[in-house]
């Protein structure tokens, strides 16, 4: 490790400082496992701190931004510009009573919020914040993030089931149904990435993008879209916040939770949101690299910039879009996205095959692939939508008919029994 390290004060990669500290620890003697242990602790504490601080920050940012979107001010009373609002919120949540309703399965009801943050946090273990700022570069990192996400669904289900509340139960069932569907989409999206980069290491994916100086979003436009949607499904953000649809099932699986237990779900949702944003930033947006700028600007700042920019999208969507119905969302996954993703993997495989067999130079083929894939994505999305019989809202009337006399009946049933 040492030969890669720059000086400890080189903050372009905080891994340098940690590495030097570890060598220092190692030089002092002591058992061989100590540096591993210490580095693990440092990594975990750093990720925890970062996650919690980002979350606090984004509570304020989200509320202000949504306020801005909704032509109002947002929190502006606690501290300058309402900056202390997240702390006030946190204090409120901490001091509220945690109600345990009668007839709940107590063990599971208490257990679920205790572990719900874990899967979201564990994802960060394989994500590189910088060249050396990665807890572990698992050789199956791409699959790991999906596997961990799938555990989340089970915890959410446990929470909903143990509440012995019908809204919670509906929310829990919805979560499970959606997550099973969209897990498939996630796998297919990241599989296409593995086909291209020939590795499942997160570090490897970033290195590949750095090496060819291209972000995978240009080569894989469809999977980015699919993964973004699947991510929104996983973290229950509009337009896919079906599992905790406020207007339908009150708060879904966490209807019965109050106080800090509810807070844990909220924290988990935020951190899972950061995790999705970080995965997209790493896999599709070049991670901590930015076309050579990482030589000058700390890579972790670039990475965080990308993560936050992507998270901003979530906020924007939340302020803008209504919610889909669950059968629409599931139908979209199975009937629409799944075939397209399969085609996409085939196409990616062919492209990689051509690239390798013909031994072409990357500078030539990658732009061609990018254009081909972009064109193909648009063609497939529009074409398949047409095949599925979707004409969009273009055919729908935009104005009611205007009648000047009373008494007439202008009723016509919708064509094709679209009820």
């Amino acid at each position, binding site marked *: 490790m040492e030969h890669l390290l720059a000086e400890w004060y080189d903050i372009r990669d905080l891994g340098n400082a940690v590495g030097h500290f570890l060598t220092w620890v190692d030089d002092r003697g002591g058992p061989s*496992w100590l540096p591993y242990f210490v580095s693990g602790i440092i990594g975990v504490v750093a990720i925890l701190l970062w996650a919690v601080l980002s979350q606090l920050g984004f509570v304020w940012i989200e509320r202000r931004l949504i306020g801005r979107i909704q032509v109002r001010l947002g929190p502006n009373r606690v501290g300058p510009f309402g900056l202390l609002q997240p702390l006030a919120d946190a204090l409120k949540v901490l001091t509220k009573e945690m109600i345990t309703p009668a007839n709940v399965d107590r063990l599971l009801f208490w257990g679920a919020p205790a572990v719900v943050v874990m899967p979201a946090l564990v994802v960060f273990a394989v994500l590189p914040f910088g060249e050396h700022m990665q807890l572990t570069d698992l*050789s199956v990192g791409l699959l790991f993030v999906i596997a961990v996400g*799938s555990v989340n669904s089970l915890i959410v289900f*446990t929470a909903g089931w*143990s509440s012995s509340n019908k809204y919670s139960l509906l929310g829990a069932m919805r979560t499970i149904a959606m997550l099973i569907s969209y*897990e498939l989409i996630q796998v297919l999206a990241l599989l296409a990435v593995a086909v291209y980069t020939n590795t499942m290491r997160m570090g490897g994916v970033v290195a590949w993008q750095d090496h060819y100086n291209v972000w995978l979003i240009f080569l894989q436009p469809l999977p980015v879209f699919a993964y973004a949607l699947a991510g929104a499904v996983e973290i229950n953000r509009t337009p896919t916040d079906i599992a905790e649809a406020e207007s339908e099932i009150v708060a879904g699986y966490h209807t019965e939770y109050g106080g800090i237990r509810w807070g844990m779900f909220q924290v988990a949702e935020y951190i899972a949101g950061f995790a999705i944003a970080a995965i997209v930033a790493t896999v599709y947006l070049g991670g901590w690299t930015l076309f050579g700028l990482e030589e000058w600007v700390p890579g972790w700042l670039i990475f965080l910039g990308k993560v936050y920019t992507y998270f901003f999208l979530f906020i924007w969507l939340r302020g803008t879009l209504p919610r889909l119905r669950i059968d629409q969302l599931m139908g979209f996954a199975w009937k629409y996205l799944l075939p397209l993703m399969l085609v996409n993997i085939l196409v990616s495989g062919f492209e990689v095959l051509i690239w390798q067999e013909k031994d072409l130079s990357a500078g030539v083929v990658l732009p061609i692939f990018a254009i081909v894939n972009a064109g193909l994505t648009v063609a497939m999305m529009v074409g398949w939508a047409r095949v599925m019989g979707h004409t969009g809202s273009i055919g729908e009337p935009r104005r009611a008919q205007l009648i000047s006399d009373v008494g007439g009946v202008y009723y016509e049933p919708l064509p094709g029994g679209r009820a």
Partner: protein
Amino acid sequence: MDDTGSVVAFWALAVLTVGSALGAAAVRDLVRSVVCLVATFVGVAGFFVLLSADFLAVAQVLIYAGAISVLMVFAIMLTPRAERNNAETFFRWPALAIALSLLGTIAAVALTTDWATTGQGFEETASVIGNALLSTYVLPFEIASVLLLAAMVGAILLVQED
């Protein structure tokens, strides 16, 4: 495998896995039993990591903890509350005896055999497994895919209403 980390991890995982497996067998409520089962699956995934089979570990979490247990939860949810117990039949004590004797036998065999062991772990398993699946084991691989398809069609047919 004699570094302290591995040893500590092994024992911790052993406690988690065996404890939750016992829990799955012992708790009265079926949903809790499934939750225990998930903990067991996660523990086994941990063992896979220890055995430098990280692809298996992830597949384990993805398929067992993520899919099979969800399937079980669904099956439990679709049956009424009265059917959600985890009780034994009269066969409890004989079953316990059989299980314990089998455990004894396997343990005795395992401990007395002189295994030709090596200390080497694997570096990158995913790509090697992938290559093996599509070269040496391509026939089983295809059979497995047909099996999955058949299972899928079969499951749909079985539960189809009238």
